[in-house]
């Protein structure tokens, strides 16, 4: 009997292995399908670059109404309806800084001459010189198309395709999903700033360890974490 122990054991092992009783369960997590907007190269704004206003399914030319009215007094800082425009352009609070006073189908340059509606960059360039220079050289604003202009057209995006001229700061956007790599483990979605290797975190007030310590000891009244600029 004893000589047959080894073969029997090996045959048992063969049987167990052949039966594949423990199939492989892949740890791969199928991430949710990427949202379509996440790979969409469309710009954030789609200006018509024409002096039009769509109102109640009819498209008016700016001059249609504005030829009937005179220029507004200088003391009116914001435009009202029917445009619904809220002007928050920093210290540029006067409509006629950009818009031609008599011909509303055009903009105005520094000498009172007209700038056509489809060349808005010349208007922005009146004040934003360094950005305009960068834009002309391609360092500001997006370039689509071809880097090699001998093989195809280079398409530069114009100012108003990203910036609302009346509220120019680029608006915050939604964020596309974070990475979900293999066996990633639990990852924090919030920025953790515990390790004080960054001196800025020590010296900024009221955020930082110093302020937290002072707050904890009761010597400083609690303030909002992020300070006044949100």
């Amino acid at each position, binding site marked *: 009997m004893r*000589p047959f122990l*080894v*073969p029997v*054991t*090996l*045959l048992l092992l063969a049987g167990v292995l*052949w039966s594949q009783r423990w199939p492989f369960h892949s740890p*791969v997590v199928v*991430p949710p399908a990427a949202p379509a907007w*996440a*790979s969409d190269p469309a*710009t*954030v704004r789609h200006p018509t670059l024409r002096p039009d206003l769509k109102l109640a399914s009819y498209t008016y030319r700016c001059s249609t109404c504005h030829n009937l009215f005179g220029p507004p007094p200088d*003391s009116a*800082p914001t435009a009202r309806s029917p445009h619904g425009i809220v*002007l*928050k*352009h920093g*210290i*540029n*609070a006067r409509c006629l800084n950009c818009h031609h006073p008599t011909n509303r189908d055009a903009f105005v340059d520094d000498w009172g001459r007209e700038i056509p509606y489809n060349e808005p960059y010349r208007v922005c360039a009146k004040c934003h010189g*360094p*950005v305009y220079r960068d834009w002309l*050289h*391609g*360092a*500001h*604003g*997006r370039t689509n*198309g*071809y*880097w*090699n202009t001998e093989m*195809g057209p280079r398409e530069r995006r114009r100012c108003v395709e*990203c910036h609302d001229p009346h*509220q120019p*700061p*680029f608006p*915050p*956007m*939604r*964020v*596309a*999903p974070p*990475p*979900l*790599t*293999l066996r990633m483990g639990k*990852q924090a*979605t919030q*920025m953790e*700033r515990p390790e004080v*290797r*960054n*001196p*800025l*975190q020590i010296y900024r007030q009221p*955020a930082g360890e110093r302020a937290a310590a002072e707050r904890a000891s009761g010597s400083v009244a609690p303030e909002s974490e*992020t300070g006044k600029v*949100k």
Partner: protein
Amino acid sequence: MAPTSEHEPLGPPDEQRSPALTRRGFLSKGAATIAGVSAVAAALSPLRNLDPADRPTLEKLLQKHYKEMTPEDKQRVLERIARQVEARYHVRPDVQDPPPLKGVEFVYALNISRCIGCRKCVYACVKENNPSRAPEIQYIRVLQMEKGSIDVEGSNHHYDPPQVPEHDSFYMPVQCHQCSKPPCVKVCPVEATWQEPDGITVIDYDWCIGCRYCEAACPYWARRFNFAEPQVPAEELNPDMAYLSNRPRTKGVMEKCTYCLHRVRRGRMPACVEVCPTGSRKFGNVLDPDSEVSYILREKRVYILKQDIGTLPRFFYYFDERGSRYHEPIAPVGPGGRT
């Protein structure tokens, strides 16, 4: 009765050993042999689940390294790849092998004053380059950086706020920097990865043996490995392919960003540049003094990541000389100085 050969004492041997085999001995030895062979066969049994496309073929064995292929070889290989992609995804691809353009060295510049961390570049790249979706492979990783620090150790890769940019953060996307002194090229034992004349570091996916030494060597964590068979939905497959860039890979090989080689060698922009909503990404030929990137390298404040390692990357981060984003515009001042 001759002694069986099972228990051979290690003392003085017999002078004449008769090789008499008893029936018991024959049966036990035969049983042991059969049991051994069947155990080995059973151990090899998972191979019956091997995907037919994965089996080694003579064609694959004889395929040469990309640099040694004649144009006829390349044509045959491109045909084979097109056939395989069509069989698997039911989409007829256009697999090309665009040669490098002369007098071109590609450089990438990224404006960290403008990047808001929306990750659209990540997903545009995924759509363009056919990496696996499950397990997920993304060539671009956007780092949310803590204000005041350039140390990537404090960065967050998994930020997911309702809106970006978040307060007191700046964002630094990282992808393959196509370094001038690439450590990955230095360490590859089979020369499956090398740098092309236009500066792009490429991988021959049919040559890579999957040792992952390049992944360990890369200081920017730019290289990805296919741990499992890549899963790409057929409707999301980009049929405009090239041998060295975005044709579908198999499991067990490395891949990485190739600056969308199939686009840039035809004069177009990479997918990440074209999708960026803020225009933070700039790409071009640094040997052309009129290109966008030449202007940036001349006029802007550029820096590179991990300069101390000496890889000489062709990827520059720059920032504008004035303030970056305003979250609240300055309150307007009226003519009388009142707010």
